[in-house]
């Protein structure tokens, strides 16, 4: 291996990241379903020939996939090692979450890159397809008790062999989805992205040579590892524990514990999840690869300067026993993985916040709220509207939390109301910030949102929700308060109804003209609410971010509903409270 000069390295870093970014952009533009096209639930990168380790990742891909893709490529490497038969022009496809992480909707395409007859590295593409069978349109089956109820599982199989597309597999895919055209469009988009990545990488290899680019890959990993070790070493040695909870698994109404014992020793870190709940009956389990991927996401949010490749995981030891819900295998259901990983990320934040609360960020809203509405159009065609929704981010040392942000696992944007209304027989009656949803604090959390949707088609609609935070709110830090709970309701002839299992429900029928309503949590607060400038509290009342009742209860500030601060009454109230 040649040693690269730092200048060439700096140049190659940008050049190779650009390839992955361009693959992302190609898929976003040509994908069919809005989860990829608008919400960017996809990812691309370059992976190590022998280990599958992430070498280079795009800067725009979905954060959770950044950690998970290495496992997906490794699954293909293992298959090839066992069975042989890898040729230039091959492309594998699969969605097995136990090998590749995440859930059945995420289809991975993995393609080898050969140079002079030798495997040089892998290119991979992953994207969230709208529907792949199972009991619930869109796949988020809150009541699933085994994988088979969540959809069809594909092990790694050759979609393309020596450049020739296997139409049989395309036909099998089409026969197992409620929306075959959408999946077909996404599949083509992913192939477009791989084609393009292959061309771009070949050009870079022609220009710099295999040796130089290999050396750059090695150097990127070493640098990421060195930076991560430096970051860990800057933290005091010790054991930091944190626990948070999931409402239930969608089947049994019992809380689930996610417990982390985080040890810092020198420049190494151990993340031990042994005290977490055992595997659950419902779909809130995750595979070990998913658990590792989301720890990676949490650490990247805290140590933003560490590059996105496998090197940064080298100093970290994971203890994720298969006796916990974080290390399950087939056929345990995993469709609700999105909720569990948010809680895993949260406990990493929570444990590290104990080291220096004044520098920590409070919890974000912490639920995906996968909501599907489905029904039949006047012509008898099936429609499925699937989306996930926003909430507030946590207060932090610099500012209040962001209103209506996205979750740490993604950069997903939400499809516009007008796009959804044009595509599906529904009508939004409200799309608004949710007052009083944020945790109080010197820097309060960002606000969650209210979404209210009316069914327009004659047969009404069926609603399915897989959400969380219905019973355990996002936490504050450094003396900040926790945020509001997630609330889901729907109209019935007998008045508003709520899910018996808090934020999870399936097969709710609403008639034409009736509505479902989702109210999402804000972020937790940072710092003592009484340290917030009363004038800013009064402004929050004027702008309707909080009510005057909350100003009084949480901040001990007296303001009129119009946001006029009553200085004397505030002083009096604070004096009374101080006693």
């Amino acid at each position: 291996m040649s040693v690269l000069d730092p200048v060439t390295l700096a140049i190659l870093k940008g050049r190779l990241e650009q390839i992955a970014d361009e693959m992302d952009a190609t898929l976003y533009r040509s994908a069919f379903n809005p989860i990829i096209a608008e919400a960017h639930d996809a990812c691309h990168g370059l992976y190590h020939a022998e280990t599958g380790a992430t070498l280079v990742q795009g800067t725009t891909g979905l954060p959770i996939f950044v950690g998970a893709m290495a496992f997906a490529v490794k699954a293909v490497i293992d298959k090839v090692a066992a069975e042989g038969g890898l040729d230039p022009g091959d492309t594998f496809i699969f969605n097995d979450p136990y090998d590749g992480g995440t859930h059945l909707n995420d289809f991975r395409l993995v393609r080898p890159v050969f140079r002079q007859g030798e495997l040089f590295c892998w290119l991979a593409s992953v994207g969230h397809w709208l529907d792949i069978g199972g009991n619930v349109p869109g796949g988020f089956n809150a009541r699933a008790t085994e994988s088979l109820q969540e959809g069809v599982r594909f092990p790694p199989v050759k979609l393309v062999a020596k450049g020739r597309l296997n139409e049989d597999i395309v036909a099998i895919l089409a026969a197992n989805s409620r929306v075959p055209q959408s999946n077909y469009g996404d599949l083509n988009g992913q192939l477009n992205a791989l084609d393009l990545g292959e061309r771009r990488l070949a050009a870079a290899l022609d220009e710099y040579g295999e040796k130089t680019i290999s050396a750059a890959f090695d150097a990127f990993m070493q640098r990421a590892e060195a930076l991560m070790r430096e970051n860990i070493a800057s933290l005091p040695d010790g054991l930091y524990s944190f626990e948070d909870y999931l409402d239930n698994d969608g089947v049994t109404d019992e809380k689930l514990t996610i417990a982390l014992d985080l040890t810092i020793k020198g420049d190494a870190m151990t993340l031990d999840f042994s005290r977490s709940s055992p595997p659950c009956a419902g779909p809130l389990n995750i595979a070990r690869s998913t658990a590792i991927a989301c720890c990676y996401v949490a650490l990247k949010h805290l140590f933003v300067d560490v590059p996105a490749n496998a090197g940064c995981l080298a100093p970290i030891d994971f203890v994720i026993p298969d006796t916990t819900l974080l290390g399950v295998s087939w056929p345990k259901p995993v469709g609700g993985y999105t909720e569990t990983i948010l809680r895993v990320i949260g406990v990493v934040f929570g444990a590290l916040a104990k080291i220096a609360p004044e520098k920590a960020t409070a919890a974000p809203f912490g639920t995906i709220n996968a909501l599907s509405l489905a029904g039949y159009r006047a012509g008898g065609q099936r429609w499925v509207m699937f989306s996930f929704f926003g909430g507030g981010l946590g207060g932090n040392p610099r500012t209040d939390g962001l209103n209506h942000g996205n979750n740490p696992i993604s950069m997903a944007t939400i499809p516009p109301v007008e796009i959804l209304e044009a595509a599906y027989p529904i009508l939004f009656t409200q799309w608004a910030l949710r007052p009083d949803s944020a945790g109080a604090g010197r820097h309060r959390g960002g606000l969650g949102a209210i979404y209210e949707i009316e069914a327009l088609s004659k047969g009404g609609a069926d609603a399915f929700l897989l959400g969380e935070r219905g019973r355990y709110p996002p936490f504050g830090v450094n003396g900040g308060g926790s945020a509001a709970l997630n609330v889901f309701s729907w109209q019935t002839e007998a008045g508003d109804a709520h899910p018996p299992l808090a934020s999870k429900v399936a097969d709710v029928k609403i008639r034409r003209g009736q509505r479902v309503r989702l109210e999402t949590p804000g972020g937790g607060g940072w710092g003592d609410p009484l340290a917030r400038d009363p004038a800013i509290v009064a402004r929050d009342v004027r702008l309707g971010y909080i009510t005057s009742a909350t100003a009084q209860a949480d901040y001990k500030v007296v303001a009129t509903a119009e946001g006029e601060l009553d200085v004397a009454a505030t002083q009096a109230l604070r004096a009374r409270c101080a006693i």
Partner: protein
Amino acid sequence: MSDRAKTLRSTIVGVDVGGTFTDLFWFDEAERRFATAKAPSNRGDESVGFLQGLKSLGPLAELGSIVHGTTVGTNALLERRGARVGLITTRGFRDVLEMRRRDRPHTWGLWGDFIPIVDRDMRIEVGERVLADGTLREAIQEAEVRAAARSLLAKGAQALAIVFINAYANPANERAAAAAARAVWPNGNIAVSSEVLPEIREFERTSTTAINAYLQPVIGSYLVKLGGALAAETFDGEFHIVQSNGGVMSTAMARRLPVRTALSGPAAGVIAAAAIARAAGYFDVITSDLGGTSFDVSLIADGVSKLSAQTTIDFGFVIRTPMIEITTIGAGGGSIAQVDKGGLLQVGPESAGSRPGPVCYAQGNTRPTLTDANVVLGRINAERPIGGNQTRLDVEAAKAAIAEHVGAPLGLDVMQAAEAIVRVANARMAGAIRLVSIERGHDPSRFAIMPFGGGGALHAGALIDEVGLSCAIVPRFPGITSALGCVIADLRHDQVLTVNLDLAGLDAGALAARMAETGSEAKTVVEAAGVAVDSVEVVYELDMHYLGQTHTVATTLPVTLRDGAVDIDEDVIRTAFEAAYRRDFSRLLVDIPVRIVSLRTAAIGRRPHFDLAALAPGPGLSVDDARRGTRPVWFAGGWREAAIWSRLDLPVGTIVEGPAILEQPDATTVLDPGLSARVDALGNLVVERMKQ
């Protein structure tokens, strides 16, 4: 316009107000004479430099017309100095502007907040609703709208935005609400979404409409003030503004749609670059502008600059209106070079800007910049700096900073470190060029690079090799390119309309009628601007996709408006769509219905041809007179004695071989060893690789 002004029509001035200088280009079309002028820009009041520069060119009363590239709108947006805006919107939706598209500022790290330009208590909901298919579900109550408008006025609103959900599909409620609000609103600053942007996607439409309202009083008062000052100088010619789409519009239109001026100045530069390249015989060009903090690139293919539909000024601050597609990266002369924690050399995006500026400006910055590296390497003449206010540059201070911050951490000596800074900066610029060319399916070997502004020509030669471009064309006067663009730019008016039609079984007659209507409207706007044009051309584009996709492919139609009518059929549209889709994605999709989402109409008033020969070097120049001796310049690992040339004194046809430096008052061109430069008939420098 008076008869006297008409007879003097042949004089036109382009005025480009930049961050540091206001550049002017004066041209007499009849006598083919030109002059340039420069005045310091006055941040906060652009009109000062504008008038000072104009007056230096002679009496204003003798001018035929003035075309202005302005950054008043851009700066008001960047510095958040717009008007206090009130918003009236559909019940249930007042937070659309603040909720954005549920994004966050950074992929990694959960910090950062967002303050909308319209406060929440300045956004009032009224009862009304239109469905996605245009059906009116609930009509507005005029009294409720009037009450909302009065309430916003009472809270200090200076401008009003009206945005209703699905107004793109049926503007009736918005129009009725606008009429009701006008009855009580004390000024003309009312922006209505179906007039500003009748296109699907409520956040983008709300943001664009609100920003328009935010700018209306700012641009309005600026133009009134300028107009008054011009009148006081007895100027009575035409006064026009360059839009972000590179076309010129009347000041009346600029006051109504100020959101279209957001990229006015840079767009003018690209227009001029395209014209210069065409005249020199190059139709595929990538323009580049290296400023203090950023490197802007734009692609011109087949002589036409590419427009993008949308741009983001800042997090959550979105403008959707056709703009010349300019890709910006944070790499400029002031970009700071540093070695990161992982040991990698980074140049930018952090910048020392023009104040305090590079270390060599000696204004307090101690961290090395790209300009410092160029000075240390001898590429910039430290005794005669360009573009700043310094008389000489402090080379020793620049060396010390590079040695400390880059050389020591990387184990390089100061010269190697300075060269590394330039190489990494070149690689970043190359990345931006690849982004607009290779990433969009264009083969860079077909393209020439055209640097304009003061700094671009320092790096253009290296970029030829780095990206594999055919050559570089350095315009004769790089520093005044934007001002020249104001004079050259065509008139233009763009309109978009979301139509949502299936291609199969299309009622082509109905679509043709709509196209004829939008085309005639746009043409009328251009004709009403009162500027001499040779012809007005109407161009149509459809945003199309396969049913189910949300992104669209821009499909240019091979038809135009003729005698007030358009001739179109399903097959013509399908053929155009498939060609466009194949170009973007290489494979078509079978058996999936195709949909037409939006109709884009542009009316372009072609200005009389501007003959760039007016700028060419005159007769009587000689190569020997242009020689300025030699100086040592560091290239590729060692000092070389480079020939120094006074660029503007070189006669047509001269060929100069690198290593060489070509100097002129507003730019420096670096010829690396192995490159040669030829002075073409128009005075441009064409830089190419020498044949071995």
